[in-house]
């Protein structure tokens, strides 16, 4: 076995941000090549933003990604408000936090059920499961639909939210809306409990690699998703404007996508990073879930990112319910409802500036950065998405994993690599088609 030759070429066919290949080359048992290459099929968002109003930035950048469009909206709005010097109200911030929670639930449920579960159950997609696991498929679709419906009520729709804008909200939920959202959210409790039971029966691959975890950190007691400094498990702490010193983007000869690193060779962002860094701030019920699933920080198995997502689902569900109950008690201040458009009437004061948004979205910390002139016209823009930050870490995982599983068959090695990449929930939602693997010269 040790003298084995393996050559793997995983070619995946495009998506938003392009093409990626997994290339593995083992000669006589020695790993010669092991890389993940992502070539962005470029859409030039940062370039297109130049010359446009800062009040259009959210609308445009939410279109970077349909899956995390609420996350992009929130990072964009935060960067824009930071740039023009606008401070949002407490009510606005709490509603935004609630929106982000719904985004986590929606996205994590999609990943756990539709993208990951088929691997573990040994089928190519959720479609065969309609026959074999009908109740599970129905539960997944029902959960997804319910979190979507909540977003519909709050911001008009989940894919490309309408009413969340720079300054606040163009429409605020009425009392009946709060009731409806609360009912919907409560109804998902049994389905989330059933998901936890299901997760307990799933067997994730065994693999360990310690790495540096990066995410938002704060000094208060709130699980930091929408605000905070950037921190790392190796002790780095940086105010969000220093994000470039955290990501340290660099080019590598084999890949046209930029890689990132901080204190070590690579770092990881996402649910597992947040779980490892901010475990103590999770909702008590989320901690119970973690215990029930046998997760205790620090978890060094990247496959368990999916389990950490489920823990975050419980956190977002329970805290979401609490936020709605608080709004029901306090009531909503409707005088904060805004009509801004392109700020034709100047309802929002604007000054020149350079603003950063640092927001935890389902796949990890997301940065938006805009520079605007005194009329609020964007001069420069920069966005660093979580998946890009994870590429380097995935590659290092692969380099450790492949030699450990050389005694397995082609199919098993391929599946292990596919599952590893999927575990990161890469926001080239092509994680399902990463997977045309070719073995050559065996």
């Amino acid at each position, binding site marked *: 076995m040790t003298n084995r030759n393996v050559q793997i070429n995983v070619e995946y066919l495009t998506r938003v941000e392009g093409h990626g290949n997994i290339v593995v080359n083992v000669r006589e048992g020695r790993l010669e090549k092991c890389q993940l290459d992502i*070539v962005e099929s470029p859409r030039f968002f940062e370039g297109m933003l130049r010359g446009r109003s800062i009040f259009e930035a959210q609308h*445009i950048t939410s279109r970077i990604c349909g899956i995390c469009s609420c996350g992009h909206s929130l990072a964009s709005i935060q960067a824009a408000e930071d740039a023009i010097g606008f401070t949002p109200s407490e009510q606005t911030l709490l509603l935004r936090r609630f929106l982000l929670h719904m985004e986590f639930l929606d996205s994590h449920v999609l990943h756990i059920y539709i993208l990951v579960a088929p691997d573990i159950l040994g089928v190519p997609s*959720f479609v065969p499961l309609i026959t074999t696991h009908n109740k599970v498929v129905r539960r997944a679709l029902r959960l997804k639909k319910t979190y979507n419906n909540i977003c519909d009520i709050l911001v008009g729709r989940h894919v*490309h939210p309408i009413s969340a804008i720079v300054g606040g909200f163009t429409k605020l939920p009425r009392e009946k809306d709060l009731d409806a959202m609360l009912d919907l959210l409560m109804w998902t409790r049994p389905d989330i409990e059933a998901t936890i039971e299901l997760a307990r029966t799933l067997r994730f691959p065994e693999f360990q690699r310690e790495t540096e975890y990066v995410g938002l950190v704060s000094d208060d007691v709130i699980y930091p998703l929408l605000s905070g400094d950037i921190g790392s498990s190796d002790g780095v702490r940086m105010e969000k404007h220093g994000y470039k010193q955290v990501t340290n983007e660099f080019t590598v000869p084999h890949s046209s996508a930029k890689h990132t690193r901080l204190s070590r060779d690579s770092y990881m962002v996402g649910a597992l990073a947040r779980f490892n860094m901010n475990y103590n701030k999770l909702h008590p019920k989320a901690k119970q879930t973690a215990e029930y699933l046998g997760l205790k920080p620090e978890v060094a198995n990247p496959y368990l990112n999916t389990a950490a997502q489920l823990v975050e689902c419980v956190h977002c569900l329970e805290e979401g319910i609490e936020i709605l109950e608080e709004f029901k008690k306090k009531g909503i201040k409707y005088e904060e409802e805004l009509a801004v458009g392109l700020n034709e009437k100047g309802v929002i004061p604007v000054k020149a500036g350079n603003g950063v948004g640092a927001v935890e979205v389902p796949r990890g910390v997301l940065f938006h950065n805009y520079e605007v002139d005194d009329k609020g016209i964007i001069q420069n823009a920069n966005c660093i998405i979580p998946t890009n930050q994870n590429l380097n870490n995935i590659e290092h995982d692969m380099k450790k994993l492949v030699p450990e599983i050389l005694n397995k068959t082609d199919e098993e090695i391929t599946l292990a690599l596919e599952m590893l990449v999927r575990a990161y929930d890469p926001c080239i939602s092509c994680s*399902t088609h990463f997977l045309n693997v070719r073995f050559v010269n065996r």
Partner: protein
Amino acid sequence: MSAKPKVAFFDFACCEGCQLQVANMGEELLDILGVIDIVEFREVMSEKWNQKYDVAIIEGSITDSHAVERINKIREKSGVLIAYGSCATIGGVNGMKNNFPIEDIRKYVYGEDAKIYDTVPTRAVHQVVKVDYFVHGCPVYPPEFVKVLKCALMGVSYDVPDHAVCVECKLNENVCMYERGLTCLGPVTKAGCNSWCVNNGNICYGCRGMVTNPNEKGAQDVIARYSISMELILNKMNMYNKCRELDKK
């Protein structure tokens, strides 16, 4: 083998949000899956299909030479082709790229590495191959998608509403955005979304494309009455509708 029509989803340059609208249908999706066979749907499936497609649903714009080749191959293999979502039907936000010289924007985003990125001016799908059905919107409006899919499966035509969003907006009893001091593209944009954005307090950004016969006199009156600069309104139209310049006059 079942005799159910073979349907496939393909994505080009886009955010995949329109595909996601399908997953967001919930358990209703199972009803649809009862009458069709989805044979390829990269976002959620690993399965592949190498035969003819009865219906191909295309999401995204055509933005590089590889995409031109790929869409032509799909067209050859497909009975019916549906352009799905703004990026596919009108070029959508990807069209904003065409506001800049290609070299300039490529260099801005990718610097020294710019040359390795193959890119051409953004085009809508019908500007490259024949399209049989259009589902407009960013994102698509799910009830309209179901309607179009039914038409495609039955082989009857679907007429995209060609009146302004204002018609639906009035029925929804929204206060006109112009009356609130804002510039809205509702008066020149195709209806069919049930004035989704305005219902939620925002303006219309024109994502469904412009009506084929806009009321120019009316638009001029509105622009004059509310003293709106031409530059502002043209810039707004270019957010989604830049690619219409490429349509044959």
